[in-house]
């Protein structure tokens, strides 16, 4: 066993323990903020796994998207709504964790047997390494074009939805008459004017630039 292999095995062990530990923490810890931070740990360990598999672009993308965007957004959501609240104790509350545990163990057993039973066709090709970026690009624009574009359209839809939600301005002073039916598929909002064209009125940009 040479140095590189030893390093690989040790780092695989560390990453695996880290991933399982943090994942368990995400599920089991009562403090939701800890769970969110530990989720970042899970993502990091997955990125490390990708690195071990010689897929450094995927690892970097994992870090950028899952930690830089997804996890931060989750944290944002938690911190903006985090209200300490004492919930009324439920009767038979123990049923839920037990039931969830049963389902999880069942799923784990099912997936485990699937992993063990399936005759995996292990690729004997040398991993792409540095040329992976080119290969990924080629796949995106040839045989994976449709899924790629669909994913981008999905994201676009999500963005449009977010903008519509954010732009909505409720008008509490206007009493909504029940007789005047709101047209379907519109949200009650104040009609917005486009950016004024007259040059004397400085736009947002100007304010921003000048500080």
């Amino acid at each position, binding site marked *: 066993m040479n140095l590189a292999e030893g390093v690989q095995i040790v780092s695989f062990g560390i990453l695996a323990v880290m991933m399982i530990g943090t994942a368990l923490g995400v599920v089991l810890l009562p403090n939701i903020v800890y769970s969110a931070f530990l989720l970042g740990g899970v993502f990091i360990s997955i990125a490390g796994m990708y690195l071990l598999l010689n897929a450094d672009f995927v690892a970097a993308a994992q870090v950028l998207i899952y930690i830089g965007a997804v996890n931060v957004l989750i944290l944002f959501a938690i911190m903006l709504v985090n209200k300490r609240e004492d919930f009324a104790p439920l009767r038979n509350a123990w049923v839920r964790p037990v039931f969830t545990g049963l389902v999880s163990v069942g799923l784990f057993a099912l997936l485990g047997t699937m992993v063990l039973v399936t005759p995996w066709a292990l690729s004997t090709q040398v991993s792409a390494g540095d040329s992976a970026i080119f290969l990924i690009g080629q796949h995106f624009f040839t045989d994976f074009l449709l899924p790629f574009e669909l994913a981008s359209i999905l994201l676009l839809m999500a963005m449009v939805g977010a903008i519509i939600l954010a732009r909505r301005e409720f008008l509490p002073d206007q009493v909504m008459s029940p007789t005047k039916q709101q047209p379907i598929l519109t949200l009650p909002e104040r009609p917005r004017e486009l*950016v004024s*064209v007259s*040059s004397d009125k*400085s*736009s947002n*940009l*100007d304010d921003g*630039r*000048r500080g």
Partner: protein
Amino acid sequence: MPLKFLKQVSDYAKETVQAARYIGQGLSVTFDHMRRRPITVQYPYEKLIPSERFRGRIHFEFDKCISCEVCVRVCPINLPVVDWEFDKASKKKKLNHYSIDFGVCIFCGNCVEFCPTNCLSMTEEYDLSTYDRHELNFDNVALGRLPYKVTEDPMVTPLRELVYLPKGVMEPHGLPTDARRAGMLPEEIAQQEANKK
């Protein structure tokens, strides 16, 4: 409609360019400041020479005082404390104590101006910092002390400033002590006036 849109775009671009130019102008101002002379005075080692009419801590001569209390009356806040008693033998007021609290004094100089016997005068002392504000309440002994002159202190480099510098000179460091200040001195003006007559 497309024209309106184009106008919007061009206005936006113009404003951007304008904003960038303003920032550039600001940068050039900041950059210009870098080559200017630092105005720092390394305080305990260097001190500015106070001007002739500098209104510093007040000096008081006990023996000259006639306890007339003019200083109290002209003071905006009646600050000087004049403690005297009538001496029946000499039929004169006898001053016991005199004190001014420099934590309250505004250094307006009215008392100095109105003192009939000139027993009050201004000094150049301005560094009146203490740990306790009551230490600033100077009694007649403390008021009678003269401050160390900046120009005579061997530990201090005296620096001239503004009108006391020679013509065209802005840098007070390394100036010879006998360098003449810009313009005529007051006594020279007086001499000139006398010569005219």
